């Protein structure tokens, strides 16, 4: 178990270093000189510019600059936004609770909804219920998140007035954004879980469990489900990337001050340190969450815990 954990962590190092190199280099890919990219469209004196050039070491060799960028990032210094006159990390930390709240709600909804639909469809394979549910899942997968958000907003907040349209402080304000974000992920989870369950249900141990007279509920719930959720876990982990991206759109529609809004403001205001900081922060979080999902495998699947290979 510890060996597996160390192995996973070691594999992450080159990926995270690569991510940091790309984020660092992005400053040089912007048109104009790096100082302009750092200050954005905030007017600053020539003096400040020279000071920045020295502070960030823009006159030193690229690898030295990268090392100092990496060193600062590791200490939690994600840069400084001249527009907000604040360190990027402060802004990220101020906005992140809103996004985490939204994503947790969306993941919970997606897992419950997708899990239910996938299980029912698999158990009723080939029936009208199955066809209808899977058809619905394919439709849900095809809805643009921003349009779904607008439609839900229009129906439930504007026309029916059941739920607040914008903001995040009123009760129920989380529901519409979370549903908007969850639908796509739920459909993907449903499709994968159905496939995975159907595959598992043909295995010998399921046949054995059934033939010894075990109740169907126990066969599905204990024997089949436990093996079927393993591949689905990976999908859930990967969906978190989509949810993070979807948060940009959902936070825009429902005017929530999360990290997605921060990133978008950074892009539209040409406030490049914010873009760099939020992308780096979000990507590292995404990678780490997927590591956690991988570790969850070991809980669900003892074969990995004991050093065996996943089948």
């Amino acid at each position: 178990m510890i060996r597996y954990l160390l192995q996973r962590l070691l594999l992450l190092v080159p990926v995270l270093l690569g991510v940091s190199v790309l984020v660092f280099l992005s400053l040089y890919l912007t048109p104009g000189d790096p100082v302009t990219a750092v200050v954005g469209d905030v007017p600053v004196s020539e003096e400040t510019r020279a000071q920045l050039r020295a502070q960030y070491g823009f006159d030193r060799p690229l690898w030295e600059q990268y090392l100092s960028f990496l060193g600062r990032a590791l200490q939690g210094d994600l840069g400084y936004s001249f527009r907000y006159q604040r360190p990027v990390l402060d802004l990220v930390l101020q906005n992140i609770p809103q996004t985490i709240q939204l994503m947790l709600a969306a993941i919970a909804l997606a897992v419950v909804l997708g899990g239910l639909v996938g299980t029912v469809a698999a158990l009723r394979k080939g029936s009208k219920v199955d066809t209808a549910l899977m058809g619905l899942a394919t439709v849900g997968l095809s809805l643009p998140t921003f349009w779904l958000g607008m439609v839900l907003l229009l129906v439930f907040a504007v026309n029916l007035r059941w739920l607040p349209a914008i903001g995040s402080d009123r009760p129920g304000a989380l529901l519409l954004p979370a549903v908007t974000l969850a639908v796509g992920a739920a459909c993907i989870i449903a499709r994968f879980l159905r496939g995975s369950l159907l595959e598992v249900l043909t295995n010998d141990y399921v046949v054995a469990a059934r033939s010894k007279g075990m109740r169907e509920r126990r066969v599905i719930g204990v024997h089949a489900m436990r093996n079927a959720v393993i591949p689905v876990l990976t999908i859930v982990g990967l969906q978190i990337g989509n949810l993070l991206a979807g948060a940009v759109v959902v936070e825009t529609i429902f005017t929530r001050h999360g990290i997605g809004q921060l990133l978008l403001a950074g892009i539209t205001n040409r406030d490049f340190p914010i873009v760099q900081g939020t992308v780096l922060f979000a990507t590292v979080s995404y990678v780490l969450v997927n590591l956690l999902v991988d570790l969850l495998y070991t809980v669900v699947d003892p074969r990995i815990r004991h050093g065996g290979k996943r089948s």
Partner: protein
Amino acid sequence: MKRLARHPSALVGAVLLLVVVAASLVGMVATPHDPTAVDPLARMQSPTLAYPLGTDQFGRDILSRVLAGGHLTLATAFFSVLFGLFIGGGIGCLAGYFGRTVDLGVVALMDILLAFPAVLLALGIVAILGGSVTNVIVAVGIATVPVFARVARAAVLSVVVRPYVKAAIAMGCTHRRILARHVLPNILGPMLVLTTTTIATAILIGSALSFLGLGAAPPTPEWGVMLSDARAYMQLGWWLTAAPGVALALVVLALNLLGDGLRDLIDPTSRQVGG
């Protein structure tokens, strides 16, 4: 092709896609009204015979705008996927075929690119390049590169061990000939499936970027832009948001259905799962 026609979801997808593409092509040359003509007397009209899908806050005909905007949405996604297919598929093939250092390098680079959530990568690239239709194509294209590279590499790896490739090597064929004659034709299937579903994803990402104001700019009739325009007025008329959204959902649904069907046909092992 015959089997494709008998696969229900593939058939529905293909027909739906043809309808949308045909409507968009017609919309490029002719629309019932001028898609950008402002008419102050016909603002915010609900659907009527003259304006079957209603008019927007400037009195522009929504049907005309949806028809005229289709090719932009479709072409943006098509070209970005073409970009990803050629670059990603190309380096994936080379990595799978030549192995060793090339493979290690490509896999490492793709792992790094895959560490970024795709939309975040596209957003970051648009932030660097600035927002425009061309830059959205490049950004979405780069975001799809690692996916194509991975699938192409895996497909090539499974093909190069086959006897006919070994025979070609034994006969002293050049790398170029082996790749073109023996490897490429045999990985077309999985690449076709991936291309179909990736175009669907590219439409969603591309229109989301336009919606966020980073792609096509108003007054261009693009579906994402139309929805973004409609945001401020949407409580005044449901028809503002209905048409462009349904159009987007329909074309993405068509591609997903077609992709599912193609997957069932090309990879028979998935048929039992796909139903």
